[in-house]
């Protein structure tokens, strides 16, 4: 990896990320504002990995994050929007980046995650009066151990990961029946070793990352046949060095993260060519204006910039902070959460 040292355009990427927030004058920039919380996580984590998080106004970010919190405890993608578990994790991660998890009412938030879980049963017959229900149903879980994304009941292993990762960061994993949660995730494993959204769902690298990380956090990786899954994952590497997310797809920088984390967590990362992958990611940089795209010469965005830099961090690219593959946060942030507890 030392060979490629110096090829990452650190300053330009920092400039690019800081510029995104200022652009509000085109349709493309405003039409995505409903997921601004995810964008904040991608941008800020990238800045932190690059060692430049102090370039943003921390108080401003935190006060905006807290404005996105819904009365139920969950977070929305932006002020005034509905809460969803997808944005809740990003909000928790952003607060963790600034070592500010103590601004949260942790019990209320973790009860909310449990509550979403409970709501699944009522999804089809949902009635708005349930919104008024007191959050006193701690400990209730879907019979099958799955998690929903919000009160509307969509179930997905991504939401299992998010719930588990969130509760882990909040030291509240004991609130759920992890055994059941793990059982559900394992039921989504396919014969090819991969995982899908629900039982029987097609294997997809993004879903695999969620399932493997959730199993890692709960100490349940022994459920996985590592050779079988590792084989599927390393078949994602194409001649260009880039990784795809499923058979027959083009390589894409974002899979550097999803495939690589999974390979690291199951200890099979030596089956891919790491230098070639780093080369591919570096070739996706916009060397002039900063930012990273999905494939060489495509338009850059903050999503792929984050996954590119995070991928390079996993590859131990010189000068980057290390990142924790399961929680998707810099290792020093994770250490603070798990080892510096008062």
């Amino acid at each position, binding site marked *: 990896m030392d060979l490629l040292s110096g090829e990452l355009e650190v300053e330009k990427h920092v400039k690019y990320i800081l510029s995104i927030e200022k652009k509000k*004058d*085109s*349709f493309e920039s*405003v*039409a*995505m504002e*409903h*997921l601004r919380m995810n964008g904040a996580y991608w941008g800020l984590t990238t800045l932190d990995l690059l060692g430049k998080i102090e370039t943003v106004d921390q108080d401003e970010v935190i006060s905006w994050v807290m404005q996105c919190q819904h009365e139920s405890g969950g977070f*929305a*993608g932006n002020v*005034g*929007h*509905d809460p*969803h578990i997808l944005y809740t994790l990003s909000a928790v991660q952003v607060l963790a980046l600034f070592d500010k998890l103590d601004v949260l009412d942790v019990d209320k938030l973790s009860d909310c995650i449990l509550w979403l879980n409970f709501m699944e049963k009522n*999804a*089809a017959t*949902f*009635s*708005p*009066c349930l919104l*008024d229900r007191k959050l006193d149903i701690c400990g209730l879980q879907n019979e099958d151990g799955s998690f929903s994304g*919000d009160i*509307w*009941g*969509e179930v997905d292993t991504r939401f299992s990961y998010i719930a588990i990762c969130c509760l882990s960061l909040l030291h509240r994993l004991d609130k759920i029946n992890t055994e059941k949660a793990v059982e559900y995730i394992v039921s989504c494993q396919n*014969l*090819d070793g991969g995982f*899908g*959204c*629900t039982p*029987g*769902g*097609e294997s*997809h690298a993004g879903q695999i990352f969620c399932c493997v990380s959730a199993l890692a956090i709960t100490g349940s990786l022994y459920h996985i*046949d590592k*050779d*079988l899954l*590792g*084989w599927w994952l*390393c*078949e994602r*590497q194409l*001649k260009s060095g880039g990784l795809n997310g*499923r*058979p*027959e*797809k083009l390589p894409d920088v974002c899979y550097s993260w999803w495939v690589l984390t999974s390979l690291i967590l199951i200890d099979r990362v*030596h*089956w*891919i*060519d790491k230098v*070639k992958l780093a080369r591919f990611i570096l070739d996706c940089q916009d060397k002039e204006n900063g930012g990273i795209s999905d494939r060489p010469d495509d338009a850059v965005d903050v999503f792929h910039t984050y996954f590119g830099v995070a991928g390079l961090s996993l590859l131990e690219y010189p000068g980057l902070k290390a990142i924790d593959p399961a929680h998707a946060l810099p290792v020093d942030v994770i250490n603070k959460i798990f080892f510096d507890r008062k």
Partner: protein
Amino acid sequence: MTENKDSDDIAFHQLKQLERILECDPLINEVGFIHPSQFAALDDEIVGSDKSVAHSIPQSVDEFISTNLDANDLQHDSSIFWIRDHKLAISTEALFHLYNAAKHAFMAALTQQKMVDSLCRKTDKSLNKKVTDDNTGPDIFLESEVMNHSKALLLLSCDNGTAWNSRKLICSKKQCLSLLMDELLFSALILSYAPKSESAWSHRRWVIKAIDGKYPKFEDVVERESELVEKIAERSKMNYRAWNHRCWLITYMTKEQVINQLQNSRKWAELHVGDSSCFHYRQLLLQRMLKHCSRFDVYHVRKEELEWNEMLIKRYIGREALWVHRRFLSQLGSRPFRSEAEKEPYVVSNQDNINMNNFISSEMQLLHSCLSISDNDFEDIQSQGVFAASYILWMFKFFNLRQQLHNSQLTVLEDMPRVMGELKMALNKLCPEKTLLWEDQVISRIM
């Protein structure tokens, strides 16, 4: 926002036009965002094919225009909207202001609706119900505002979850079947130009769960839903969200539907051999169909699918999706599929041994036929060699009949070290970048 008042007014007026267009023609089935200079080209495309006047609502939807609409309201700015034959085009120049107007209108209506809702709930729960029956009152007005504005907003920003949720909330309050069916039309419209919109697919699942048990011919809904996925998959290759939706539908299918789907998807797969999602769909259908079948039935279904797959492998050289499907088939009928019968100990019959011997030696033949041409420099032919050799290695390593293999006299297995050596050599030559994988897998297999 630093917009001046005038441009806000203009944008709001345009939003009204858009909402009126959508209201007048609920059958709009395609939307596109194009530069206004291309509007003329759209007109040319259908010259002679249609007699309706350009830039006006087509005659065919007259029946949908309720009597209280003023004909003047149907006028719209032809430099921004183009509509004909249920196809709508919106000028890319107008999107930014239109989006802002739609967002503000939607958010304002939603806030007001929530306020009225919580007031109703606090004072008297039954009040809410009563007003709903009346079809008047402030909440009815606000509901239609939320429905209209969210429609316009979603058209411009299809993954806005809050806007989708506001529609779900109104649908679940009304408990009205036709309202739910309208949601299927509207989300299909979104999917016509955003086929990967996760929120739109998820919205459909919510609607379908809500009408299950209420709609008289629910099988028809499932059938049409499956057809919709196929139509979208045709234009949007390798669409994970679309196929995932179709897989989800299987649990709602009747036995006959499963068999029909298997037949129909076969033709589709032959024309789209690179779309591995379609093969995954077949895998689920096969498992569903064979769930309660005898070992004999499983054997025959599997054999037929293997032969079909081999025919495709030989016709389309170097297609990964076909080999991935074959890996699955190699395991079909083995232990994980037999959950029903798992309680009884599995006895390997003589016939099993013969079948297994035949299967493995025919797979070895397939391997040799693929490797014999892989000396060729063409990339597809080289890939075919890698796929074939890694398929055999994978099968030996993960065969769930390992137990069975051990107990039986499989002639091909007596020669395992030689077979492994041959595979290792082929793979290291054709795909040297994965040497560490081949090394690990071959060694762990021999030991």
